[in-house]
């Protein structure tokens, strides 16, 4: 078991993508991961999609339900009363479960919308970096923490213009890796508890109402940690980091200022004193350098509402060995 800054890391799963994957896709994958974690860690009795379907089916049953029996018939009156009482009892239990399920699904939809907002069209506004799924009473002291790390988008001109990998194939890849990674998710029992989603995003004012900034929040030390690392394979088109590189040739760089100028050749920034260097190029270098955010530019936000799991208390128990008919 690895230790990193006193945090107990139970498992790490690295999912590497060789092709371009858009930020929106990572957002959707994060949402699918949250759904997966909630079911696998026993916070909901059925997988998310099946739970939605169950709620729809039960709501239809409630709408079409009729009272039992005919009160005018004295012969079956006692039976009808008893049946109605039993039915009311089971209805109460079922309705309670339906209310919990409805509340749970509504909370999830709000949270998922927020996650997808950070990777939406104006993705540059948020630059979602990490998603934390904290299972436990509070996000500061949870029982389990799932850290989903998103990669920075590649800046290589060749890579960013390549055909992006589809969401379906990314999801296939992701869940195959996760299920194949032994011991990734704990198999220990975990009662339904609070689930808090934290996002690490670029500072932005104002934040949407359901994103509460937590300026002093840090990834909690307590609880089991599972890290899910999305990353891109090393790009073969550039050798350096994401910083732009420039040629010291005397060719006119005016046009390239308006285009992608990631690569030309390795240059020395001190040669800006060279009178041949385009002044606009110098400004662009400084501008680009400033645009790359540092760690301090990111903050943690807590998504509202918190999600509360629930148990299945109304489905009947299977009888012992009822397969022997």
């Amino acid at each position, binding site marked *: 078991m690895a230790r990193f800054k006193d945090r107990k890391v139970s498992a790490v799963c690295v999912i590497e993508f060789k092709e371009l994957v858009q930020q929106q896709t990572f957002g959707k994958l994060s949402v*699918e991961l949250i759904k*997966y974690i909630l*079911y*696998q860690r*026993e916070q909901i*009795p*059925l*997988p998310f999609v099946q739970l939605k*379907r*169950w709620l729809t089916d039960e709501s239809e049953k409630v709408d079409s339900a009729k009272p039992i029996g005919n009160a005018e018939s004295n012969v079956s009156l006692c039976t009808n009363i008893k049946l109605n009482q039993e039915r009311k009892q089971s209805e109460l239990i079922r309705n309670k479960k339906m209310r919990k399920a409805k509340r749970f699904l509504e909370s999830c939809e709000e949270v998922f919308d927020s996650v997808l907002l950070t990777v939406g069209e104006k993705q540059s506004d948020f630059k979602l970096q990490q998603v934390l799924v904290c299972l436990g009473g509070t996000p500061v002291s949870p029982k389990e923490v799932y850290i989903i790390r998103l990669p920075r988008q590649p800046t290589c001109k060749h890579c960013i213009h390549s055909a992006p990998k589809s969401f379906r*194939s990314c*999801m*296939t*890849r*992701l*869940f*195959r890796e996760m*299920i*194949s990674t032994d011991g990734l998710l704990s*198999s220990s*029992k975990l009662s339904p508890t609070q689930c808090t989603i934290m996002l690490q995003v670029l500072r932005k004012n104002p934040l949407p109402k359901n994103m509460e900034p937590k300026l002093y929040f840090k990834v909690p030390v307590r609880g089991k940690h599972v890290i899910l690392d999305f990353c891109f394979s090393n790009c073969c088109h550039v050798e350096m980091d994401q910083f732009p590189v420039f040629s010291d040739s005397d060719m006119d760089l005016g046009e390239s200022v308006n285009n992608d100028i990631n690569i030309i050749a390795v240059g020395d920034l001190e040669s800006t004193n060279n009178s041949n260097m385009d002044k606009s190029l110098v400004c662009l270098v400084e501008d680009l350098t400033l645009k790359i955010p540092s760690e301090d530019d990111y903050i943690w936000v807590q998504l509202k509402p918190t999600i509360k799991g629930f148990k*299945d208390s109304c*489905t*009947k*128990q*299977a009888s*012992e*060995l009822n*397969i*022997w*008919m």
Partner: protein
Amino acid sequence: MANVNSANAVTLKGSADIVSEFFNYGINSILYQRGIYPPESFTRLQKYGLTLLVTTNDKLQHYLSIVLKQLREWLISKDVHRLVVVISNIDTKETLERWEFKIECDKDIKTNSKPKQKDIKEIQNEIKGVIRQITASVTFLPLLEVPCAFDLLIFMGKEAEVPNEWAESPPYLIPDSEEVQLRSFSTSIHKVDTAVTYKNTE
């Protein structure tokens, strides 16, 4: 009834009961998750601390009952090595998916042997993990966009007694396939490993 003397003692027959019961719920889960039968033909039950879906189709229940009763006998006689759920295209008969359950048995154990010690709750917890993974597998398995049928294959030892109702069958392997290993569980007498193989669509 399972021959279990206490909550922690597992006999050969008790282990066979546990494993057969798992296959009942496991096969039902696969049939539901992969849409082999319509979802409205399933009902919900609580088992292993999970909400599981089991068929209400009489014919399917009858079929599974026959197979699993026989399986139980073979588990006790220690003749069975593997159970495979084969999913194939109804029209072309092409095998699209194989759920393979490898079964290992303690060779030394007999029906009158001293029970082995393993907490039944621990066994149920392991089974729960396997079934949850079966449920989760739909996220990466290719969509089955054609009407499908299923077959159950049981791989036996050569010396095993096979009733007349059972026929020999090819293995229905999938060329150009991908395999994913899922979790396993053990009763301390029988160990069951699960894997799913599917047609490579990429």
